């Protein structure tokens, strides 16, 4: 099914990731069920209010409704919910949580939330993250506590609120937080994951369209600056991405010389 057609009637934001349409599809089907139930109830309800209003010559009946139709419709509701749950939600969640791309094939990025910004940590050309230690964290240039004595750290790219990803390439994001709970949210990619201090939680996605810049927000109340804890994800073509990466690396070399 073409995602554009069946989701247009609900006010979703654009949907640019590979797993995103599955999320919207379920959401749409659930809302179909909700609308059908609500409309059915509403028609019956309004009919009753008019037809059974108190008036001259009208009397209430002691035991009028047998409720067969209601029972049938309740079974219908149970079945519909079961289908949504078992046929759509569970498989979609399991597929998304279990079918991680391989670490080798994917771009690996660490995301570290802090009041009130998103830090991005790329492993650099060697593909290995430098060692980090919370004891080394400071506000004067080493907010992630990177141990510069580790050779793997030399080429690591650190950005603030700026998240570059290549189009059509799986990305694995390891999410954590330095201080309080945040929630790493990219609506257009249907990505939302709490950043919990003390835990590193991996998620993955693949952007399949929408080259350009899109909002990253924080969805979990994290203090007075929660509302402005935002960054941008740049969905790059592979050329754009390679260019950005190379430029960052050369900046690093320039700085260390």
């Amino acid at each position, binding site marked *: 099914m073409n995602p554009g057609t069946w989701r247009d009637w609900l006010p979703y934001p654009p949907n640019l990731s590979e797993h995103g349409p599955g999320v919207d599809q379920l959401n749409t089907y659930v809302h179909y069920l909700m609308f059908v139930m609500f409309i059915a109830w509403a028609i019956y309800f309004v009919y009753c209010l008019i037809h059974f209003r*108190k008036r001259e010559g009208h009397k209430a009946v002691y035991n009028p409704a047998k409720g067969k139709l209601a029972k049938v419709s309740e079974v219908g509701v149970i079945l519909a919910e079961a289908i949504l749950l078992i046929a759509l939600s569970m498989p979609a969640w399991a597929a998304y949580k279990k079918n991680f791309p391989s670490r080798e094939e994917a771009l690996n990025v660490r995301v570290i939330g802090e009041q009130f910004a998103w830090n991005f940590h790329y492993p650099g050309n060697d593909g290995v993250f430098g060692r980090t230690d919370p004891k080394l964290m400071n506000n004067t240039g080493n907010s992630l506590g990177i141990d510069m004595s580790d050779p793997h750290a030399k080429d690591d790219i650190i950005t603030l609120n700026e998240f570059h990803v290549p189009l059509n390439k799986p990305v694995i994001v390891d999410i954590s937080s330095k201080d309080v709970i945040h929630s790493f949210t990219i609506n257009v990619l249907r990505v939302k994951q709490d950043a919990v201090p003390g835990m590193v939680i991996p998620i993955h996605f693949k952007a399949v369209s929408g080259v350009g810049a899109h909002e990253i927000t924080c969805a979990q109340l994290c203090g007075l600056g929660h509302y402005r804890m935002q960054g941008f994800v740049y969905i790059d073509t592979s050329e754009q991405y390679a260019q950005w990466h190379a430029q960052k690396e050369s900046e690093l070399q320039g700085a260390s010389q």
Partner: protein
Amino acid sequence: MSEVVNHHPVHEAHHEELGFLRKYVFSTDHKVIGIQYGLTALVFLLFGFSLIMLLRWQLAYPGKPVIWLGKILGENFMPGGIMLPEFYNMLGAMHGTIMVFLGIVPLAVGAFGNYVMPLQIGAPDMAFPKINAASYWFYFVGGVVMLYSFFVPGGPAQGGWTSYTPLADIAPVGQTWWLVGMVFLITSSLLGSINFIVTIVQMRTKGLSFWRLPVFVWAQFVTAFLLLLAFPPLEAAAVLQLMDRLAGTSFFLPSGLVVSGQMIPNTGGGSPLLWQHLFWFLAHPEVYVLILPGMGIVAEVIANNTRKPLWGYKTIVFSILFIGGMSFTVWAHHMFMTGMGTTMSTFFQTTTMIISIPSVIILTSLLLSLWGASIRFTTPMLFAIAFLPMFAIGGLTGLPLGLTTSDIHLHDTWYVIGHFHYVVAPGTIFALFAGIYYWYPKVTGRMLNSVLGKIHFWLSLVFMNGVFLPMLIQGMAGMNRRYYDPTATPWGKAMQPFMEFISWSAWLLAISQIPFVINFFWSMWKGRKVTSDNPWDATTLEWSAPTPPPHGNFPTPPEVYREPYEYSVPGKEKDFSPQFIKEA
């Protein structure tokens, strides 16, 4: 044949004369305590509501100063009339806390439960009148502590009504007072719940078997179990958080926590998610504490005004019991985005879908009860029938939140706010209004004015929906909740007209409560006097008591002869056959 409804003269209490203080302030009479709960809770509802009126200004017109308010509230909250983000968060956190713990629950359980339940079971009082009074006073102190926290340095709690750690662990001292307040409030609920359970089990009058109890009593019974079993974990959790804040423990602080460049001294070994599990283990059952008494009130009012028995009395009761038990198994559906794996998510989304079924069944039964009726559109009935579609929206919007996959998009957005407000505001609060209009004549001996009542109803209905329906759209469009400045993101900016619309609806909703406030006080002295103890021609026991009921309630213990909703029984001359009247 049937005896005419009792016209008791108002009995003088046979007890020793009590002084003013013992009679009206430190009373142990369940009715006085119920009224105390009711008035206190209404004041808190109004206060909690005004906090959000203030907050809605910032959402509609971010950063626009209100000079005179700035002068009243001062530099710490609104310097130059511009709301600080901290203050915004305080308003949000205290609104939630006050509405839930100091408004709705005390009104639904403390006031209605206390006043009506013993009357409906034909008891002279609660089983433990002194514990009952203690329950009110713990609640009162809890409320005072919460209010006091507005005046401590740094202001009151600002981490949401959920007080997630570590944010709450490192918050200013107002959070400590929040925790102290919660400990009082929880203790109050525990004392109340034990009392309710014992009273319902032990003190039902002659002939009143469990299957003859009004639905309202059943709802209170199950609610009491929820309070009794769910609150202790939160009380423990609150104490642990207090320890983290005061004694240097780290129950909720993991190792290596660095806040604005500084390592937290007591960081190490704890888990932030532990708090969430403990909190939601309480707070999911708590949401049923918010809704079940409301459903009970609606059932009473619908039976009375349809002039026929409820459809499926036993079905409704079994559904309530099932919801009660099941509500302890769904709590982690509030935590789907915390990194939960497949097994847990499967369990919790399955239980959540299962618990939605009895809600559907209750709603269907109440709707079926309308079939074959002769509906009187009295003011309480208007609120009770409006409850049905409003609760329907609230319940239905729980479904996409309860499925993990669709929750990815909706979690922590305005959709969640829309969902639970549909359940609690045009849902529970409408039910509570129905209850006030319905039982007011029993409490005061006078009717509330029905013209004012109808104005109050229609305006409230329109503006409630004006407030909450757009929130569902905002959430669907991906707007996060708890944002001080909704225009901070480009996407939010585009949605700003919604914010303005909602705020205006909210302010108009506030104005719509004026007829109610006027009615409430005016009718106390000037309302139409009831000419019978049973002005609604109702069937349950509270209407057999004198008006207002004296200390001890019934001149002679009533006896029950039949089911609670025997309306329009074939072959009977009257369209109601009260439980308390013996017929041939």
